[in-house]
C-alpha cells in the first residue's frame, strides 16, 4: 500500500527527447548558403540592347518583403499592389520605363518615338532583336495584341479609362514588325508618359486563350512558373502561397551594363510574404530581408538606434507624394426618396467658401506635425506636394492656422454662440457642428482627426469624430453620399502626372470627392478647372501643362474645396550591402531600378550573418 514507487517518467522523457530532436535537426540546416556559379550568358545580346552606365557584380539575391500574396500573374488583370509590385517592372515592362529618381520617362522596349505636327499620331519604334524570356521574338504583333487586350471593354482594368481622348479610345496600328502607330481623336499631351503603363504581353502564349474567352483565368497564381513568359529583368521561378514568390534572372533581358554584360545583376529577387508588421520589422532587424519599405513613422527612431548594429541604414526619402486632406460634403443633391444628402442648414455652411476658409484657419497643422508625426512632415496647402518635381506650386493661396481669422470669418457669417454652450449657432439657432469620418485602419489619420476636432472646438465648431471601417466609408462616399465630412488621403499615380488626375479635379469625376459626378460645374471655380483640365490634357509641353495645373491648384487653394492637412516624410530601411540603389519617393521606392541593383557579398555584415 505504501509502496508508491517512483512513476516511470518514460512518456515525459520521450516528449522532451522528441522536442529536442526537432530543435537540433532544424538548427543543423537552414543557414547553408547554396553554391553560387559565376555568371555566364548563353544567349546573344539583342542588337538594340539598352546600355546603362553602371557597374556591378553578378550573383546573389535581394529579399524584399511584402504584406500580401500576389493574386494573379496576368498583367492586365492585376489591380492591387501585392500583385503589381511583382508584375510591374520585375516581370513585365511597357514601351517606356519611368525613372523614379529623375521623375521622367525613359525609353523601354521602344527605343524612340515621333509625333505628328497635330499631335494626333504617334509612332513608336521597337528595339531590334528583343526576345521573350522563352527566347521567342518580341515584335509589333505583341504590342498590337497587348493593346487589344488592355483596351477590351470586357476585361476590367484602368487602362481603357486612361487611354482615350476626345471621347474616343486610342487606336493602335501596326506599320511593320518593329513599328507601331497610335492614332488619337484629340491630342493627349502626356501620351508617352502614360503609354508605358500598358504592359506588353506575349501574343504567342496568350492569343489563343484570349480568342477562347479563357483569358481571365490565365496565369493565375497556380500556373506552372515556366508558362509565364516575361519581358522584364526577371521571370517567375517559384510561388508558394503565403510564403514567398521567387523571381529568377530573365536570360533574354534586353539591358546591359557599362561593360556590355547583360542585366540584371541579381540571380534572384525574392518577395517574402509577411502578414504582420511587427514580424516584418523583426525579420529585417534579424537580417533576413534586405529592405523595409516604408518604416512606420513612429518606429523610425527605433530603427535608427539599431541601424549600425544591424548593418543597415535608415534612408530619409524626404516628403511623400501622398497627401492627407479633409473635405466637407458640398453635394446639394437629394437621394431617390427626396431626402437631402446633407441637412440644408449645414449644406449652406459647407457650400460657403468663408466657412471652408475658417475651417482651414482653425486647423493647427504645425501642432499635428509636432504631436502626431514628431516633426516628420510639413504643413500642406497644395494638391500636389513638394515631392512632385514638375507640378509643385509654391504660390497656392494658403489659409494657415490663425484662430483669430477663423473667428472673424465665422462671426461675419452670423455664426455666434447664442445659448452659451460653447458652440456657435446659426441665426435660426441650430448648432454649427458636423461629423467627421476617416478610415479606422489608419492610426495616423485617427490621430489627425482627433487633433482637428479639438482645434475646431476651440473656435466654436463642434466636430464629432467617428472613424469608420474602410468599406463603410467608401460606400458613404461613393454611393449614398450620406456624410458630412471625411478625412482621407490620396496616393500618387506613377508617373505623378496631373493629366491622370482627371477624375479628381473634373466636376463630373467619380473621385471629385466633395461633390462628385456633377452634370454641369457647380461653381465658377470648378467650371474653370474643367476648362483648364481639358487644355492640360491636350498640351504636349510639360512646362505649359504646369502653367495650367498651377492655376488649378490656385483655384483649389482659394476655394478650399478640400482642406489639405499634412505632407508626411517617408523612410525606408536598407541593408548596407545593397549597391546601385537610387531611392526615390515614388513607389517602388528602392526597387524601381532592380535590374541595376546588386548585393555586395564581401560586405562584412553579410558575412557575419
Amino acid at each position, binding site marked *: 500500500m505504501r509502496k508508491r514507487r517512483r512513476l516511470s517518467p518514460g512518456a515525459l522523457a520521450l516528449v522532451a527527447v522528441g522536442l529536442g530532436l526537432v*530543435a537540433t535537426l532544424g538548427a543543423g540546416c537552414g543557414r547553408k548558403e547554396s553554391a553560387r556559379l559565376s555568371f555566364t550568358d548563353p544567349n546573344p545580346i539583342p542588337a538594340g540592347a539598352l546600355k546603362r552606365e553602371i557597374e556591378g557584380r553578378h550573383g546573389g539575391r535581394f529579399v524584399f518583403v511584402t504584406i500580401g*500574396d500576389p493574386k494573379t500573374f496576368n498583367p492586365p488583370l492585376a489591380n492591387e499592389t501585392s500583385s503589381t509590385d511583382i508584375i510591374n517592372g520585375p516581370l513585365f515592362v511597357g514601351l517606356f520605363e519611368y525613372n523614379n529618381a529623375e521623375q521622367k520617362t525613359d525609353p523601354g522596349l521602344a527605343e524612340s518615338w515621333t509625333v505628328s505636327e497635330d499631335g494626333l499620331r504617334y509612332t513608336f519604334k521597337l528595339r531590334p532583336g528583343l526576345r521573350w524570356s522563352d527566347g521567342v521574338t518580341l515584335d509589333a504583333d505583341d504590342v498590337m495584341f497587348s493593346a487589344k487586350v488592355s483596351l477590351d471593354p470586357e476585361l476590367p482594368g484602368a487602362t481603357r479609362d486612361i487611354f482615350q481622348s476626345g471621347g474616343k479610345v486610342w487606336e493602335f496600328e501596326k506599320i511593320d514588325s518593329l513599328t507601331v502607330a497610335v492614332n488619337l481623336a484629340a491630342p493627349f499631351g502626356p501620351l508617352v508618359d502614360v503609354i508605358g503603363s500598358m504592359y506588353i504581353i506575349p501574343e504567342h502564349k496568350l492569343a489563343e486563350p484570349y480568342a477562347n474567352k479563357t483569358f481571365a483565368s490565365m496565369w493565375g497564381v497556380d500556373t506552372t512558373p515556366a508558362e509565364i513568359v516575361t519581358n522584364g529583368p526577371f521571370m517567375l521561378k517559384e510561388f508558394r502561397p503565403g*510564403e514567398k514568390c521567387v523571381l529568377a534572372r530573365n536570360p533574354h533581358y534586353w539591358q546591359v551594363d557599362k561593360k556590355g554584360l547583360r542585366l540584371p545583376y541579381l540571380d534572384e529577387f525574392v518577395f517574402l510574404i509577411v502578414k504582420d508588421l511587427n514580424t516584418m520589422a523583426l525579420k529585417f532587424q534579424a537580417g533576413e530581408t534586405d529592405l523595409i519599405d516604408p518604416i512606420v513613422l513612429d518606429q523610425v527612431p527605433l530603427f535608427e538606434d539599431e541601424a549600425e548594429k544591424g548593418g543597415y541604414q535608415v534612408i530619409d526619402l524626404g516628403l511623400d507624394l501622398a497627401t492627407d486632406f479633409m473635405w466637407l460634403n458640398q453635394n446639394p443633391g437629394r437621394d431617390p426618396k427626396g431626402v437631402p444628402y446633407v441637412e440644408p442648414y449645414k449644406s449652406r455652411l459647407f457650400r460657403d467658401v468663408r466657412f471652408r476658409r475658417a475651417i482651414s484657419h482653425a486647423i493647427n497643422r504645425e501642432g499635428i506635425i509636432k504631436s502626431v508625426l514628431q516633426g516628420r512632415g510639413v504643413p500642406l496647402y497644395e494638391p500636389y506636394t513638394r515631392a512632385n518635381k514638375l507640378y509643385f506650386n509654391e504660390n497656392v493661396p494658403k489659409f494657415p492656422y490663425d484662430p483669430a481669422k477663423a473667428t472673424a470669418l465665422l462671426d461675419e457669417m452670423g455664426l455666434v454662440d447664442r445659448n452659451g454652450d460653447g458652440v456657435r449657432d446659426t441665426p435660426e439657432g441650430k448648432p454649427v457642428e458636423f461629423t467627421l469620418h476617416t478610415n479606422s485602419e489608419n492610426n495616423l489619420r485617427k490621430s489627425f482627426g482627433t487633433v482637428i476636432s479639438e482645434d475646431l472646438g476651440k473656435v466654436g465648431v463642434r466636430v464629432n469624430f467617428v472613424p469608420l471601417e474602410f*468599406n463603410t466609408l467608401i460606400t458613404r462616399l461613393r454611393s449614398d453620399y450620406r456624410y458630412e465630412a471625411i478625412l482621407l488621403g490620396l496616393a500618387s499615380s506613377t508617373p505623378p502626372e496631373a493629366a491622370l488626375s482627371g477624375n479628381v479635379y473634373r466636376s463630373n469625376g467619380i473621385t471629385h470627392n466633395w461633390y462628385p459626378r456633377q452634370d454641369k460645374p457647380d461653381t465658377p471655380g470648378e467650371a474653370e478647372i474643367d476648362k483648364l483640365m481639358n487644355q492640360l490634357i491636350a498640351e504636349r509641353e510639360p512646362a505649359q501643362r504646369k502653367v495650367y495645373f498651377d492655376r488649378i491648384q490656385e483655384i483649389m487653394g482659394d476655394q478650399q474645396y478640400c482642406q489639405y492637412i499634412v505632407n508626411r516624410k517617408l523612410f525606408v530601411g536598407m541593408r548596407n550591402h545593397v549597391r546601385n540603389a537610387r531611392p526615390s519617393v515614388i513607389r517602388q521606392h528602392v526597387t524601381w531600378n532592380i535590374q541595376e541593383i546588386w548585393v555586395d557579398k564581401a560586405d562584412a555584415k553579410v558575412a557575419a550573418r
Partner: protein
Amino acid sequence: MRTYLLRRIFTLIPLLLGVTFLAFLLIYLAPGDFLSQMAENPQISAETIEAMRTKFGLDQPWYVQYGLWLKNVFFHLDFGESFAFRQPVFHVIAPRLGNTLILALSAAVVAWGLAIPLGILSAVKQYSWRDKTASFLAFLGLSIPEIFFALLMMYMAAKTGWFPVGGMRSLDHDQLQWGAQIGDILHHLVLPAIVLGTVPMAGRMRQMRANLLDVLRLDYVTTARAKGLDENVVIWKHAVRNAINPLITLFGFTLATLLSGSFIVEIVMNWPGLGSLTLEALLKQDLYLVMGSVVIAATMLVLGNLIADVLLALADPRIKYD
C-alpha cells in the same frame, strides 16, 4: 457503429446549410463589397466598376446569389471562384489547408504530449514541488495572451538567432536534401507549435490532474493496491485508463479549436495557413473564398468531434453507439 457514423455524416448537411447561410447573410450585411476598394482608385471609372459588378453577379439580390451558389455546390460540387485570385476556391485553399493541419496537429502533439504526462505526474505527486511547478506553469500558460506570447517568441528568435523569425521554410529550402527539408520545416514549426499548444496544454493538464485525483480516491483503486498490485499497474492500467475518458472527448473538440485558433498565430508568426488567407478574404469581402473557408472549418469541427466519439468507443468498452 457504421449506422452511427453514417448518421453523423448526414447531420453535416443541415449544419453546413445553416452555417453557410449565416455566413452569406453576414457578409452581405457588411457594408460594401469586393469592388468597393477599387472604387477608391481615381483611375478606374464608375462604368468599369459597374461592369465588373455585373460580371461577378454582385448586382443580384443576396438570396439569388446564395441560391446560385448552393445550386452549384449541390449539382456540380463547384464552390465558386475567388474574385481576387480568379481561381476555383479550393485551388486557393488546398495548399493553405495542408499547412494549417501540420501546425494544428503539431500543436496538438505538444499540448497532449505534455499535458497528459505532466497531469499524471502532478496528480500522483500531489503537493510536491513538481506538482507546484507544473501547476504554476499551467496557470502561466492559461493566462498569457496568445498574441503576446507569439510576439515574445518572435522577439526571442530575432535576438538569439536560434530559430527563424516566422515562416515555414527557409529561402534555401529547395536546394536541400529531402531529410534536411523536413528538418527545415520542423525547425520553423517549433515556436508556432509551442505557442499554439500552450493554452490547450495548460487546460488539459489541469483536467488530467483533477480527473486522476478523483479516480485515485475511488474504492477499486484502493482494492487494487490492497491486493498488492505494482503501483505502476495501478496507476497506468486501472486509474489512468478511467481518468482519461473525458479528455478523449475533449480531444476532437481541441482539434477543431486548434484549427480555428491558429489564425492569430499564423498571422503573427507568418505561417502560410488558412488563417491569414481567410482574414484577407474577409477584409476584401472575397465572398466565395470566405464561404469555402467556412465550409472547411465547419467540416473540421464535425470531423473532430466524430474522431473523438470513435476514440472514446475504442478506449471505453462500456460505450456503444447503436
